[in-house]
């Protein structure tokens, strides 16, 4: 055995734990470092060395009972386990654990859609259900509901929900649409939240709050338990669906577009998670940076203009959709059209205007819950596969959109990167997603990407902007920006950790939450 062992764990202790786990799941489902499959648990796309987050082993249970037994073994042997659902949140670390030596608890074999109730409109799923699996299940059974998927069609339903991910239909706020949760606690006991705690209740996926404190959120972006089931509300297939795009000529149009869009969102005229995406996000479907420049640094404005003209892409591009009864959709469309016509030069585009356009096509598919992989074309902009997402939250206001855009682009250009970003507009805020693309085969470029990201965290925090989600390597840095009142929130998270997982075996370091006595420094 050559792998780095978990911190403080002896070879004998580790081997004993692995042997015990083999008895639970079978030999082939305990993957240790002499098995080539262990390489599949690396974070190969971020800017840091893969060795810094290399797992010592992976264990793949097939049932809740097996998860309980594995957790008990980990607890008795003091083995840190990092649970993943499908492990495909590539820009945020993929299947890799927070630090080297942790054992990945891979739940992808638990991949059943346990129930879809067509009268009440909910589903109950296991951790390993991917978007494609879920979509295919609905299609196969001809169910009158849509799923809501992230842009990464290979991603998983539960993992994305627990990491506060979003999709693009009217049910795009995934955690909002989650109802009921089953959790294996650090001692191996099994808990159900909300109505699931009441024996014989059938309301587990119907009423979130049950009785007493509402605690589902504690098990998201955290390490307080291993979630093994969730309930989800499903969006009924609407009688009418009208996806559209609005192209804007100037980067300054972002201000007015955001201001005009907000009332449409708050009044639910536009009910879905609408997107305002920058030129280069769109352009990566059609071209690469190398075709416009072979030199270092970000592309100049003059080149961006030429790209916009050549491919008929806006400097900003707004995508959204209307859903509902046909008459309502047509009435609402008049309002939407009139709103965006107020912006000089805005070009309003419908599906029939852009037949065969891959950018419109994949967005429209996402807005009706159809998983696809088109957005991965972003990886071809510079090539080499490196990418990390910087994702600050802001009010959905024109001022904030412009301020963040300029701030982030300035930092990107300082480090030689193009700004490739979009705003995902939620109920009243927006997630600003920067795709920091770099060539992972170029050590200097990887280092610059890492440094750029670190500066972005500091600069954003100085302006009062915090990230909603992040890559493994920046979890501590971002947790520390949420430091009001002498870090009261993080201190509370760590107190909860101590109460629910006193041995500190569950995903140490997840989102900056380390067990007592274990700090990022000592871990590294």
């Amino acid at each position: 055995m050559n792998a780095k062992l978990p911190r403080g764990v002896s070879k004998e202790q580790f081997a004993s734990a692995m042997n015990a786990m083999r008895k639970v799941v079978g030999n082939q489902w305990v993957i240790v470092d002499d098995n080539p499959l262990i390489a599949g648990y690396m974070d190969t796309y971020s800017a840091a060395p893969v060795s810094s987050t290399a797992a010592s082993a992976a264990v793949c249970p097939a049932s809740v009972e097996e998860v309980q037994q594995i957790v008990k073994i980990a607890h008795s042997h003091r083995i840190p386990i990092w649970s993943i659902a499908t492990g495909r949140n590539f820009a945020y670390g993929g299947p890799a654990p927070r630090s080297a030596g942790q054992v990945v608890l891979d739940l992808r074999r638990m991949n059943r859609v346990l129930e879809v109730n067509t009268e009440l409109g909910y589903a109950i799923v296991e951790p390993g259900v991917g978007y494609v699996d879920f979509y295919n299940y609905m299609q196969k059974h001809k169910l009158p509901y849509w799923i809501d998927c992230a842009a990464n069609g290979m991603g998983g339903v539960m993992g994305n929900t627990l990491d506060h991910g979003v999709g693009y239909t009217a049910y795009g706020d995934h955690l909002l649409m989650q109802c009921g949760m089953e959790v294996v606690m650090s001692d191996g006991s099994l808990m159900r939240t909300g109505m699931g705690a009441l024996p014989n209740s059938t309301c587990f996926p119907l009423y979130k709050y049950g009785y007493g404190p509402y605690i589902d959120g504690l098990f998201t972006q955290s390490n307080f338990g291993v979630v093994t089931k969730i309930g989800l509300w499903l969006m009924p297939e609407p009688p009418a669906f009208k996806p559209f795009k609005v192209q804007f000529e100037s980067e300054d149009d972002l201000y007015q577009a955001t201001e005009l869009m907000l009332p449409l969102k708050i009044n639910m005229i536009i009910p879905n998670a609408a997107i305002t995406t920058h030129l280069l996000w769109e352009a990566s479907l059609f071209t690469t940076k190398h075709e416009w420049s072979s030199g270092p640094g970000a592309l100049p404005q003059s080149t961006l203009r030429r790209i916009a003209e050549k491919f008929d892409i806006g400097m900003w591009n707004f995508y959204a959709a209307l859903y509902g009864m046909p008459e309502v959709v047509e009435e609402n469309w008049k309002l939407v059209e009139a709103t965006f016509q107020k912006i000089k030069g805005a070009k309003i585009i419908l599906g029939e205007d852009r037949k065969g356009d891959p950018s419109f096509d994949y967005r429209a598919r996402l807005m009706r819950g159809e998983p696809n992989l088109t957005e991965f074309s972003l990886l071809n902009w510079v090539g080499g596969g490196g990418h990390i997402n910087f994702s600050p939250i802001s009010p959905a206001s024109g001022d904030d959109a412009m301020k963040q855009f300029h701030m982030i682009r300035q930092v990107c250009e300082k480090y030689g990167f193009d700004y490739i970003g979009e705003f995902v507009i939620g109920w009243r805020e927006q997630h600003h997603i920067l795709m920091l693309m770099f060539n992972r085969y170029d050590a200097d470029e990887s280092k610059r990407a890492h440094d750029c990201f670190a500066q972005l965290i500091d600069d954003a925090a100085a302006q009062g902007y915090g990230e909603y989600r992040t890559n493994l390597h920046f979890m501590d840095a971002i947790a520390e920006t949420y430091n009001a009142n002498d870090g009261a929130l993080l201190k509370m998270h760590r107190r909860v950790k101590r109460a629910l997982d006193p041995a500190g075996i569950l995903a140490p370091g997840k989102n900056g939450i380390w067990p007592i006595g274990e700090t990022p420094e000592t871990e590294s």
Partner: protein
Amino acid sequence: MIHRRQLLAAGAGLVVMTPLKIPLTFITGAIGSAAASPDVLAESGLAGSLELISAARENARAARVSDIDSTILIGQLSKAWARHPRPLFGMTRSDVAVLVEALARDHGMAVVYRGWHDHRADGSVHHVLHGDAKAVAMLKRQFNSTGSFGKILGEQITVLTASGGRPESVNFEVATGRQPSGRARFVSWAVAPVETATAI
């Protein structure tokens, strides 16, 4: 208007062009056929992809150059590998490589070779190769002796999909004095079932 890719295909003569998607028969083939003969997939429009396919035909179970819709490809591979995981060598854009690597893990397969190829404005090609130490050292020697690395990769697909030694990276440039006839920055890669694989 004739697309550049059509011109490339016409010039090559040997290869079959398949627009937009890979035929399922290519991916599934005859289950249970010769054990380790890899499938080979090259994306059209990349500098060297036609040479790769031509050279790979002798040792491949099937070899294709094609436009790739990543959603369709991953769906097809997923179905095929669920029945019979088998070695696959590719020369593609980065997105396809990332997706195939992720899918391979689900089917008990590992990445056994990765290459990055970057044609520079001065006519040189920068290569970063990671895989079995002997295999990548051999590739480096051969790349340096001739500029046609697509052909060399095609000749070595069996070695690159069935390597079993210590992994190593090499990073080097080869002067060709020519500009590429196609997309100039892309990757090559190989995935294989664990029985034949060594993790890199």
